């Protein structure tokens, strides 16, 4: 799964996610990526989220919307909200990660897997990472 979230100069956020799903899927299986609110969500009042992971768990946790809702209604930071929701996914037995950007300019990764292909950019520069300890 691949994805991107962005904050533009006008203060608007957006999210996009694209995937092939899981190897050997059958019966028309669909994961979280195209489910608005599970794998993808954007709301200028809170944040934009794109997820990658074991899709069924992300659907059950409503991951992307849940992160935005925690930020909007509880006033949590992007990091606190994302870590809490990924922890919840872990409690259910799922693994994966999210990327988040907020209108305030917060940019975070949160994942409970050993690694995640990822990158971040701003006017100050850019960085990419693969392994968990980078």
């Amino acid at each position, binding site marked *: *799964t*691949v994805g*991107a*979230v*962005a*904050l*533009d*100069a*006008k203060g*608007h956020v*957006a*999210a*996009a*996610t*694209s*995937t*092939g*799903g*899981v*190897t*050997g899927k*059958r019966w*028309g299986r*669909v994961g979280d*990526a*195209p489910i*608005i609110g599970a794998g*993808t*969500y*954007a*709301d*200028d*009042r809170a*944040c934009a989220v*794109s997820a*990658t*992971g074991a*899709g069924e768990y992300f659907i059950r946790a409503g991951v992307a919307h849940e992160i935005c809702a925690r930020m909007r209604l509880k006033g949590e930071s992007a990091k606190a909200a994302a870590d809490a929701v990924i922890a919840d996914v872990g409690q259910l037995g799922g*693994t*994966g*990660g999210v990327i988040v*950007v907020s209108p305030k*300019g917060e940019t975070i*990764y949160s*994942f409970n*897997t*050993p690694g*995640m*292909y*990822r*990158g*971040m*950019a*701003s*006017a100050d520069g*850019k960085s*990419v990472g*693969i*392994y*968990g300890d980078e």
Partner: protein
Amino acid sequence: QTPWKLVIHGGAGVIERERISKEQDSDIRAALTRALDAGSKVLAGGGEAIDAVEAAVKVLEDDPHFNAGKGAVYTYEGKNELDAAIMRGDTRAAGAVAGINGTRNPIEAARAVMEKSPHVMLIGEGANIFSREQGLTQVTPDYYETPERKRQLEELKANKLSWFDVDMKYG
């Protein structure tokens, strides 16, 4: 003006140094950098976040290292079924497609659903027809094929592993 920001991912899972060659490591980092460059170009020029995320995702869809577009994993029947979604935060307009094939960049199909239809999600052959009607670039099924994805499917079938055991790079 708000300082622009862009974050991307190319999948998560059991990604460890001993399982990735130096060449693969280098290629993956280069692709991630190209995706950042594509999105950054939009944002640095004063463009919209929605255009930036689409531009970044298209780069990753076109790169065979990632499970999306070219390089997508196989279904049990040896086909590719692609899913994508896009959403803008200012209006909460959203579009998604599921189980499609034939569209080179599924994220374009998701955006077309958002902007050119009254719906949020289209699936299967109906979504394929919609994509063609919108004039999006179409490809033949062999476009998505990569030897590594075929090997992963064969390994799954041979070992009767669960879906999540083969590669552990999720989608």
